[in-house]
């Protein structure tokens, strides 16, 4: 197991974003093949492949598709390109390099579930990526992949590209649908799940950019081929967005199950400045911190969960020995406070109080009781929030208190950040 270019295998090809070039690499072959199949067989194929959603939760894609109630139309496919989880930048990379691969995946999924109108919801800040998709959609329409009676197969499909406007919560699927309907992007109660009552009250599938990008390859090569890559419960590859204190940050597509050590040490070139690894965080801002002793854990949903964190949306934030863990947690807590939509009290108030305490830690004004107070606030948010944003706001800070409680104590006893001081002393 190692680097395994599957979605990224043609990214070295010049002008891959252009339809003609994409077709030359075999592009749209998956969609053509799909159109020869019965939609139900396509759903079965994806089920059998074991593909799991890459948007964060890892839900089996084929199963999600099969939840749509029989005979209820219209139904919608929405591709989630809202990518706003701090630490994640893979969907951006996939769109920039191969917008047609994303589009082909969307068309395959739409055909499989019987959808004639698909949407792409892209975060507002991704303007060049929006434009790349817009161009790709126009090219695909011209070539007859989008429109009425696609490739003479009697299937009609259209794709609307919809631009968000700066709200992290709109990545959560029910908030996304509310936003797409033109309202303030607040989450909705589940159930009913979007598969039953989604966009405009109709059956809807929400799938991530990376998830759909896998589909052309699965259709072309088959379920068994896909299952042979990765781990039994996590077939395929994932793009890992490596950032922080490594020599070579960036996106790396790795076969699932590859040890984290290989990603960080070999591909990332190890920790920068010849420093030691202190901690790392898979998944994104929400996920719990892991330690050097976890380096041999595999890059895989289940393995990372077993180690005490979550693979989430494929971030890998690396922190060296000079990192102030309190400050890292403070950034994330402030992020969640800022992005809390305000709909429910535990999250709206809880993230506010956590942010205040973290600011006090940083300013040297925290009291010894504040560490346990943070934990208490965490418990009263987690499991009591309306949507997972609230829950997730507590995971990283609580894990940091668990492993680095002494750093919190130091902030209190030394009235400020011990790491900043040591940097200043080193400079002076």
């Amino acid at each position, binding site marked *: 197991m190692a680097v395994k270019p599957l979605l990224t295998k043609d990214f070295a090809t010049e002008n891959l974003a252009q339809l003609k070039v994409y077709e030359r690499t075999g592009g749209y072959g998956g969609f053509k093949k799909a159109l020869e199949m019965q939609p139900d067989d396509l759903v079965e194929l994806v089920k059998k492949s074991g593909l799991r959603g890459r948007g964060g939760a890892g839900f089996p894609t084929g199963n999600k598709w099969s939840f749509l109630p029989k005979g209820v139309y219209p139904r919608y496919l929405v591709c989630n390109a809202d990518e706003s989880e701090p630490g994640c930048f893979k969907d951006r990379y996939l769109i920039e390099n191969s917008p047609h691969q994303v589009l082909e995946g969307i068309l395959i999924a739409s055909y499989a579930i019987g959808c004639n109108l698909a949407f792409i919801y892209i975060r507002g800040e991704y303007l060049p990526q929006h*434009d790349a998709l817009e161009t790709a959609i126009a090219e695909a329409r011209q070539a007859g992949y989008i429109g009425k009676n696609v490739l003479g197969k009697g299937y009609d499909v259209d794709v609307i590209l919809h631009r968000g406007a700066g709200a992290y919560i709109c990545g959560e699927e029910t908030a996304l649908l509310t936003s797409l309907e033109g309202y*303030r992007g607040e989450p909705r109660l589940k159930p009913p799940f979007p598969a039953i009552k989604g966009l405009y009250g109709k059956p809807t599938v929400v799938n991530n950019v990376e998830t759909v990008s896998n589909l052309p390859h699965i259709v072309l090569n088959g379920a068994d081929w896909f299952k042979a890559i990765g781990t039994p419960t996590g077939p395929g590859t994932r793009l890992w967005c490596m950032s922080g204190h490594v020599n070579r940050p960036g996106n790396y597509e790795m076969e699932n199950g590859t040890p984290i050590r290989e990603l960080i040490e070999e591909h990332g070139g190890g920790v920068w400045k010849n420093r030691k690894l202190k901690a790392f965080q898979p998944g994104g801002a929400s996920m719990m911190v892991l330690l050097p002793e976890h380096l041999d854990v595999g890059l895989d949903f289940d393995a990372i969960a077993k180690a005490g964190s979550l693979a989430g949306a494929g971030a890998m934030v690396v922190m060296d020995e000079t990192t102030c863990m309190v400050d890292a947690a403070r950034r994330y807590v402030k992020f969640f406070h800022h992005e809390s939509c305000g709909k429910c009290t535990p999250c709206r108030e809880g993230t506010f109080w956590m942010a205040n305490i973290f600011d006090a830690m940083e300013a040297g004004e925290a009291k010894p009781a504040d560490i346990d107070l943070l934990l208490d606030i965490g418990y009263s948010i987690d499991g009591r929030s309306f949507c997972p944003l609230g829950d997730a706001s507590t995971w990283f800070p609580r894990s940091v208190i668990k492993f680095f409680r002494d750093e919190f104590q130091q902030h209190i006893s030394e009235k400020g950040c011990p790491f900043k001081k040591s940097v200043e002393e080193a400079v002076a």
Partner: protein
Amino acid sequence: MLAKSTVTQIKDLAQRYPSKQSAIIPALWAVQHEQGFVGKEAMAEIAGHLGLPSSLIEATASFYSMFLTKPEGRHDVVICVNAPCMLRGADEMAAYLQRALGVRDGQTTSDGAITWHSTIECLGACGGAPMMQVDHRFEENLTEERIDTIIERLRQPVPAGRASGAPAAEPPKRKPAAPKRARSEN
């Protein structure tokens, strides 16, 4: 008053979606693209063209952080200081930029060239941290020298034919960025 082309765009949008309400956010974008911000009057106009109450347009617009409510400098800059960027020195870059511009949060330089909004949350460029966003274009792997170069470029006088105060947040449509060839560089 909105330009004719913007009005046409809004009316087309209303037809495009299964529900005209879905056209609100794209319509707000169209207005910001034309005017550089979305004021109360423009929202009332959107409401008129979509046949929806003004209050609904305002409620939606106020939820989203990217819609500007007042005109700003010709260029708009922010720096991300979320944890992945912080690890690579984003705080120092943000401090340097503010010193170089001589402004505080939300202020525009006296020549009207650059508005420094504030520090901002993750923009999906953590692999190129520290980063700054200039009018929706990402500038990655920042150094103090690069910041100097960028500021100098932004301070260039307005090219003839472009009124000052014209769109800052919405630059003219660009061709999509050429795909990166490197295996891992984002």
